[in-house]
Every structure is written in structure tokens, then in C-alpha cells.
């Protein structure tokens, strides 16, 4: 993002809207610190002055918008947002079958942002455990060598609001994966939010909670519940039960 000085009235109203604190006033001039800016577009949408604009973004800077602005479509996946349908459509897609554990590590969330180099650090920490990253996730397309967790060199210094490492593992292996992630948490300069997903047992218990406990962790009391109402072939509209 940039600020057109000829249009800026110096009201500073845009400053608190920046999720990463990249808008600064220096010597009575308001500027965007382009090194910190993640191109999320929030300041532009929230400001009425018309002074904030986004120049055309070239590769690899365009990744900032793709991974930060929820209104931008990822060319690699054709979708918005930063992840996949994950558990949201699991009863239809079977992405996570019974017995599988889905783990997603959202680097930079909440509200801190991340350099992609930190995403690479965490990827390389967990890959020796034999997990494979989800190919439908836009982060996958940043790897030069997904099996080695090596990012394309030119993207490492790009900064985004968040990027997700998403993968599938087993109930038996998941506690070890979580322990490795815990160690990796000490080696990055950002935060990450950890998601764990699984199909419920027939008695309604959550395998994800058992896995977390086995790793010495507790799940939070709130989360997402797929109600199992999706169908591969929906009924024609208007036919209520």
C-alpha cells in the first residue's frame, strides 16, 4: 500500500486500522512502511480520503496480498481465504477419513504476521516425521521442493498476515508431531495458531482431544463443528423434509 501525499490530509484515521502497524507518521508525513506492510487492503477499505492506493504488485510481493487480503483470490487454488475447505465439507469430501488426524499450523495468526522464512522453519521441523503437505492449500505452491520443505528462495523474505501448513497424520503419530511443533515454536519470531481435526467417534467423543492429551495439551472449549448435513447429491431446492 502507498499513500498519495497530494491527497493525504494528515487525519491519521487510517493508522490504527493497519493490522501490522505499518502506517507511520514521520515529520508530519504519513507513510506506509512497505517492508512491514502485508498488502491486506484493510487501510484502503476503511479510509474515505482516497489517498491510500495499492500499486500493481509484482512477483513475489503479490504473495502478500494473496495471503493477507481475504478478498483476494489465490491463483494457485482459485479460492479466497488462506486455506482449504478442511473440515468444513469433510462429510462430503472425506478429506479426513475416520482414524485420520488433520493438523493445520497457521503461521502469523493472530494479528502478528509472519515472514515466509518462518513458515519454512516449521515445515522443515515436521517433515522428517513423514507428513505430506496438503496440495490444495496455497502455501504448498510456495515450495520449490515440498518434500524437503524448501521454499522458493525469492519468497522467503515476503511478509504475510498468515500462511497455513496443513497436513494429515495418524492418531498414533499426532502426539509426536505436536511435540515437534512445540519445539519449533521456540525457533520462530512470530506466533502460530494450531488446529487439530478428526471425525468424531460413534459415541460422539473427539479423537483430537485424546491426541492432544497424549501430547500433554488441552483443546480449547470452543471450535468448529461440522454437522454432517452435506450430501454428494443435494435434493432439488424447495423440497423440505
Amino acid at each position, binding site marked *: 500500500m502507498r499513500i498519495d501525499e497530494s491527497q493525504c490530509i494528515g487525519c491519521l484515521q487510517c493508522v*490504527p*486500522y*493497519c493490522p*501490522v*502497524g505499518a502506517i507511520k507518521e514521520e515529520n508530519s508525513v504519513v507513510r506506509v512502511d512497505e517492508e512491514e506492510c502485508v498488502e491486506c487492503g*484493510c487501510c484502503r*477499505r476503511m479510509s474515505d480520503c482516497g489517498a491510500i492506493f495499492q500499486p500493481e504488485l509484482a512477483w513475489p510481493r503479490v504473495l502478500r496480498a494473496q495471503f493477507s487480503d*481475504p*478478498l483476494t483470490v489465490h491463483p494457485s487454488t482459485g479460492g*479466497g*481465504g*488462506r*486455506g482449504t*475447505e*478442511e473440515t468444513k*465439507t*469433510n*462429510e*462430503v469430501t472425506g478429506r479426513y477419513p475416520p482414524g485420520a488426524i488433520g493438523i*493445520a499450523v497457521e503461521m502469523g*495468526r*493472530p*494479528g*502478528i504476521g509472519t515472514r515466509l522464512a518462518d513458515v519454512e522453519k516449521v515445515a522443515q521441523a515436521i517433515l522428517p516425521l513423514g507428513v505430506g503437505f496438503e496440495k490444495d492449500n496455497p502455501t504448498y505452491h510456495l515450495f520449490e521442493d515440498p518434500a524437503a520443505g524448501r521454499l522458493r528462495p525469492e519468497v522467503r523474505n515476503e511478509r504475510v498476515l498468515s500462511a*497455513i501448513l496443513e497436513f494429515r497424520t495418524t492418531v498414533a503419530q499426532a502426539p509426536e508431531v*505436536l511435540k515437534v511443533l512445540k519445539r519449533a*515454536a521456540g525457533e520462530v*519470531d*512470530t*506466533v*502460530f*495458531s*494450531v*488446529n*487439530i*481435526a478428526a*471425525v*468424531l467417534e460413534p459415541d*460422539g467423543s*473427539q479423537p*483430537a*482431544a485424546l491426541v*492432544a492429551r497424549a501430547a500433554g495439551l488441552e483443546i*480449547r*472449549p470452543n*471450535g*468448529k*463443528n*461440522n*454437522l*454432517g*448435513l*452435506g*450430501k*454428494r*447429491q443435494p435434493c432439488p*431446492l424447495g*423440497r*423440505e*423434509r
Partner: protein
Amino acid sequence: MSHTNHRTGTYESLQKDFAVIMMPARGINEVDTGLRLQQFLQIGYRHHPVNAGPARTGDAFMTAPEKLIAHERKSKIAQIVFDDRKNLEGFIRDLVAADLGFSIIVSGLFDEVEDVCQRVGVKRHTTLCSLGVWGRVDRLPGSEVMDIATMCGHGMIAFNLVKDVIERLKRRSLSLDEAVKTLTRPCACGVFNPARARDLLSRLAAEA
């Protein structure tokens, strides 16, 4: 992924926070997507939601329901937020009857959602749980900021904005209505819960 997951807060506060999403499985059951999403929102508006939105159109809190529903024709996902469990229950009951055929996801306290599901005769299929935030948690603000900011999982509600609003509210240079509106606007998907934000902000203002 998971833009309605990782909402922080006390148990009591989270009892007033339920986000419901409907979406098709891409390439599998995308039949009459816009019409089904419209119907989802139409049913939802019968049950007193506090926010709603098709992704990408934005400004859900300030947009009239009929306009949002019209926008939904072009969307791939719809979301609606409730601050009351009974309203959520009524909505889910009507959704089951409507049999829209797309996936329905409810974000909220697991035990509360499970109770609602039992009452309407639905068996949950999959859960996505949060193991919290790891890494440089020293860079995060306090719970009074986090509980509000994490209601936008895309991170559009800046920590600095929440701090600024709280400060102005305490100084009485901003009304509670203005504070809620200021914080709701950046969330383009309409999953922010302005009713819960009002509750949290009014407590903070009372402490000042």
C-alpha cells in the same frame, strides 16, 4: 482455514457467540449454489442473527438483509452469527427441515453445540479444535484486546484499533454504538459478533 476458530474469551462470554457457515464442496455438489446460500440466509434472518455476510461483499453489519441475500447469489460461502443459543437452535432446526444439502458448520463452545445438536436430532460429523497460540506469545496483547480481535479470523481487526477504541471509549470520546460499529466494519466476511463486542466493551467502559 478456520476463520471462525481460535476465538478467545471466558466461557460465559463464549456462550453468546455462535458463527454458522454453509458452503458446498467444491467440484462435488455445487448445484444451485447461490440459491441455496440465499435460502440459508433467508432462514437465518428469521432467528435474529447479530451479523451475517457473504464473503467478499463486506460491510455485513451495516447492510440490509435483502441486499446481503441478493449478493449471496454470487458467493461460494455464507455465514451468520448468533448471540443466543435458542436462536441458534431454531435456525439449525429449520436448516435440517430445509435440507439444503450443503455442509453446515457451527463454531462455538463444543458442549453447547453438542447440546443443540442433540435437541434437533443431528449427529456431529467432524470437529476442528484449537490448541491455542504458540511461539512468540509475548508479542500478543492482553485478553481485553484478544477477545475482540480474534472474532475476525482473517486478522482484519487490528490490535491497535481495538486498543484505540477502548481508550477512546474510556475517555468518553467515543460512544458505545460508535465503538461497536468501528470494530465491526473491517471484518469483510461478517463473522464478527458485534453483540458480544458490545458486551465486552461496556464492561471495560464501566471499569474506567
